[in-house]
């Protein structure tokens, strides 16, 4: 039986960190050997040998938040293009939001997503079920049936649940099925009509702002309800310093709360909106410098568990419009890890911080076992070259959409290869003697 020999990679095993240069052998669907640098494996006829010098070998990345667009908006993305984009970005597991058309508020949709993903077979797609019927915040979606069908968490996508009473019962009910509740925490009244972070830049640009306090108010409410119900709560894409402070305090109290932010919120501030770039119009908005510093500190101290892509494919037609009219969101699955390593290069993080935010952190939020890179573990792996430069353009972009400010620009950091269950799902095999 032929093997894959990955020679000389910097191996990352989440609980132990980057353990050093090792040779890793994949046999079948699992990791068969992890050998010391001085002790390379023998190469046999037919083995796939990968020279991994200078690259990081990590368990496949896990994304907590991507908008799949299938069913309903397959012209923007479908589960096939999403899977290809994900593995090209080093992700082997992707949680997809329920905001499809029809939305995933029914076990039939959950089953459809899982069946299609299994047919495609490039990576593990995990459905987030809607929390409420049609994501309208009026009554509960069939959470139990969706859990049975394979939903791994519940949440209303980018909709906040206005009613505190309904949110309470949603948390109670979901926790009975052992599903974490993923919340988009923002006061919808305070955020209404908002186009960007409310601050000096929104004042300058004449765009209606969403104050950070809109997030603070609802993160506070969700934490209070989690405390009341003892439900597992995950705060999606936290963007503000005060939001982070509330999450830190909740964790200190021992509440089962996890949180994520996005690569854009870690990398940029609202100043980046000076020329009205529609592809930086995000939900929640990119905030000010103090908020960004707080997010970075929170990733370092573990208050923020994970960094997600918040991959949001949108048709060019939804983007070639005035800022007010543009659909928010950007694609990021293919560039996310490279963008994070850019922050390592700037000495803001150690490699373990960003690798943890793409592996262990998301698994904790989902209540799944921590991924390992050791003998016997599943061979869901990414070989990532943080220094490799490439350009995201029409030939390299695997998403059906191209709504990102990085389109046409050079990007640093590339997943050279990705394996899912021992199979090479991204990268060219170079069979050598």
């Amino acid at each position: 039986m032929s093997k894959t020999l990955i020679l000389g990679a910097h191996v990352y095993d989440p609980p132990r960190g980057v353990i050093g240069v090792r040779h890793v052998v994949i046999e079948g669907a699992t990791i068969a050997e992890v050998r010391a640098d001085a002790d390379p494996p023998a190469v046999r006829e037919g083995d796939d040998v990968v020279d991994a010098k200078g690259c990081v070998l990590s368990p496949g990345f896990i994304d907590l938040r991507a908008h799949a667009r299938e069913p309903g908006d397959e012209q923007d993305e479908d589960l096939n293009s999403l899977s290809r984009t994900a593995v090209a970005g080093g992700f082997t597991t992707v949680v997809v939001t329920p905001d499809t058309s029809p939305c995933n508020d029914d076990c039939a949709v959950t089953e459809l997503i899982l069946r299609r993903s299994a047919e495609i077979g490039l990576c593990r797609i995990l459905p987030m079920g809607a929390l409420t019927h049609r994501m309208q915040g009026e009554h509960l979606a069939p959470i139990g049936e969706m859990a049975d069908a394979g939903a791994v968490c519940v949440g209303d996508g980018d909709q906040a649940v206005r009613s505190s009473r309904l949110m309470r019962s949603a948390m109670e009910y979901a926790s009975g099925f052992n599903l974490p509740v993923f919340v988009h925490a923002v006061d919808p009244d305070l955020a209404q009509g908002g186009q960007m972070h409310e601050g000096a830049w929104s004042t300058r640009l004449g765009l209606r702002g969403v104050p950070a306090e809109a997030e603070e108010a609802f993160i506070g409410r969700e934490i209070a309800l989690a405390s009341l119900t003892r439900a597992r709560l995950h705060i999606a894409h936290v963007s503000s310093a005060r939001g982070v402070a509330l999450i830190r305090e909740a964790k200190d109290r021992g509440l089962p709360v996890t949180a994520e932010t996005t690569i854009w919120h870690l990398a940029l501030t609202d100043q980046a909106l000076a020329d009205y770039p529609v592809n930086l119009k995000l939900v929640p908005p990119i905030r000010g410098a103090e908020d960004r510093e707080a997010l970075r500190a929170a990733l370092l101290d573990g208050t923020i568990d994970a960094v997600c892509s918040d991959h949001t494919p949108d048709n060019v037609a939804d983007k070639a419009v005035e800022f007010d009219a543009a659909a928010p969101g950007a694609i990021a699955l293919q560039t996310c890890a490279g963008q994070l390593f850019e922050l390592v290069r700037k000495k803001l993080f150690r490699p373990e911080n960003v690798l943890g935010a793409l592996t262990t952190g998301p698994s904790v939020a989902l209540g799944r076992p921590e991924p390992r890179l050791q003998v016997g573990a599943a061979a869901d792996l990414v070989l990532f070259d943080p220094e490799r430069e490439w350009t995201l353009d029409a030939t390299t972009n695997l998403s059906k959409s191209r709504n990102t400010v990085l389109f046409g620009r050079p990007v640093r950091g590339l997943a050279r290869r990705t394996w899912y269950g021992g199979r090479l799902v991204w990268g060219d095999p170079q069979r050598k003697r």
Partner: protein
Amino acid sequence: MSTTLETTSGREATPGPKLRHLLGLEQLGGDEIRGILDVAAHMKSVNLRRIKKLPTLRGVTVVLLFVEPSTRTRVSFEVAAKRLSADTLSLSASGSSFSKGETLLDTAKNLEAMQPDVIVLRHGASGAPHLLAGHVDAAIVNAGDGSHEHPTQGLLDAFTMREKLGDLAGRKVAIVGDITHSRVARSNIFCLTKLGADVHVAGPRTMLPVDVESLDVTAHARVEPAIEGADVVMMLRIQRERQEGVLFPSAHEYHRFFGLDAERLALAKPNALVMHPGPMNRGVEIAPDVADGAQSVILEQVENGVAVRMAVLYLVGAPHGMQPGDAPA
């Protein structure tokens, strides 16, 4: 190409800064703004002649694309373009393909097939002129975008002030009303601070945007400290239909606390200018006797608007190297 300019004084006028677009005043420097105002002064002298026409933009096509309704600004631009001999084409939201759901870019691309040299855009969304500038070849002149900027209004206000007061450095200007939603306020703030004026903004707290001080102005929640000792008091229009009951309780209360009446105006310098970009709500933000009083320059603002817009159209639209007063080759 460069011939001596006709000027009323006989001196050679500055040719002014060449502009690719006029998207806003924030990006311009003080010298560029003064350069535009100097050209406008020359244009104003043309407007006082019996034959109010220059050949400068002959053969230049100016499209007036008014996606948000406006009569005054459109007419002012149209007069300005015609006095420079440009061909004008006017499109408004109703009666154009916008009412059929065509996007701004589609409309602009279609217009572009007719090779316009300048597109003057009025639009309800902040940043709309920036979007156009990134997608079409024509020069874009922002005639008001959402709550962002109204650069020709800012220029004509500065022009009017400069005409009456001379250099604006150190002059106190009070801008009173809905600063948050006012593009006139923003353009005035950007323009006047660059000319060295001491800008104060005032209005109910609901109408002062967050961190407005970051624009180098002093903000007041009551109007008296803003008006006190001011050289200029500029009142902004209140949008009663959208804001009454949410941003302020009633027109009556607004007038009582934030309106400009003779008593409040007396706090300003004795000959302080009273300005308003129009259209006015008489008896709400401004008392009728003040609006029509001796200190009011509101109608002169309108007159100067044509001269300033002529200057702007000339600076973005004239073939390079041409000077105001030149005829095209």
